[in-house]
């Protein structure tokens, strides 16, 4: 449990992780296909919400972040052994697909479900 581990991580204090608002989390973000330069062939939808993950990874990675064992060890290595080994990064954990209707160069129309197009949650790894 994070609470118990933090007691033996040398020099650990909650202030080290910075303000909670700056911690690794999912940020909603919307972009239009016009902005991406794809509106000349995508019929629907008009907007796309890929979202993104941003923020600092805490020094002790709790369960809610779904970090793999490797990330937890790498964090400890950074903390206790070698600071040239970077801390884990805040990246997407789960994705959901998006359905797109587009017109092809030859005038055919395509409906397609593209996997892993929208970030749904984040992790530190």
């Amino acid at each position, binding site marked *: 449990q994070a609470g118990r581990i933090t007691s033996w991580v040398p020099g650990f204090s909650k202030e080290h992780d910075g303000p909670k608002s700056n911690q690794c989390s999912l940020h909603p973000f919307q972009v239009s296909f016009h902005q991406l330069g794809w509106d*000349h062939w995508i*019929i629907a939808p008009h907007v796309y919400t890929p979202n993104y993950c941003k923020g600092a990874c805490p020094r002790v990675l709790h369960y809610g972040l779904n970090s793999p064992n490797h990330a937890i060890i790498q964090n400890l290595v950074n903390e206790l052994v070698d600071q040239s080994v970077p801390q884990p990064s805040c990246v997407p954990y789960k994705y959901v697909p998006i359905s797109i209707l*587009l*017109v092809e*160069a030859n005038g055919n129309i*395509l*409906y397609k*479900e593209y996997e892993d197009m929208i970030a749904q949650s984040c992790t530190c790894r």
Partner: protein
Amino acid sequence: EVGQPSIALMADAPSLPLIQELLEEAPGKQQRKPQVLGHPLQYMLELYQRSADARGHPRENRTIGATMVRLVRPLSTVARPLRGPWCIKTLDFPLRPNQVAYQLVRAIVVYRHQLHLAHFHLSCHVEPWIQKSQTNHFPSGRGSSKPSLLSKAWTEMDITQHVRQRLWNPKGHRVLRLRFMCQQQKGSEILEFQWHGTSSLDTAFLLLYVNDTHKSVQKAKLHPRGLEEFMGRDSSLLLRRTR
């Protein structure tokens, strides 16, 4: 931007399927959006609205049964003048060269079974264009029992079996050829009819419901069996070394 050299280089990497698709399917920026109007566009918009919400999220209860639906328009038509009460049009639907890499779920031809042109009232149906001595694999009945996105004048016909047997293999023809046959409705005076005012798009289009198998192919490459085979080869090397 699509078409720039940097993206072309990225497409060489087999792990970038989205980039590959953008290069294959997207019209160039300088190219105008192909004009797609009328019934085909309406049909696909309704299919989209049934299958996804306004933000593009696929609906949980969607009944589409495939991850991809391609509407193919006929490439060219050869119209033959009226023979008795019949007039016939040949429709060619081109298939993409790599199409068979996808798993075919369903193939549907959508066509107008009623045509009203000037003084003509025609009843129409489609048939496969098959060389003599070959059997007809089309269903004898007309239309589909599935809930339809169509207005009254249009009909769907399931031709999955025909497409699967004749076209969906690496050696298959790359073109699906159909005959669009119309007959003047009974009681109307037989007049000399020409296919004026009916573009091929106004009469029929093909729908291919397919599943993308790229992911499963990639998974198969990473399957433990591959590793076992590798290990097997490796262990035989070790054995030889021991010997």
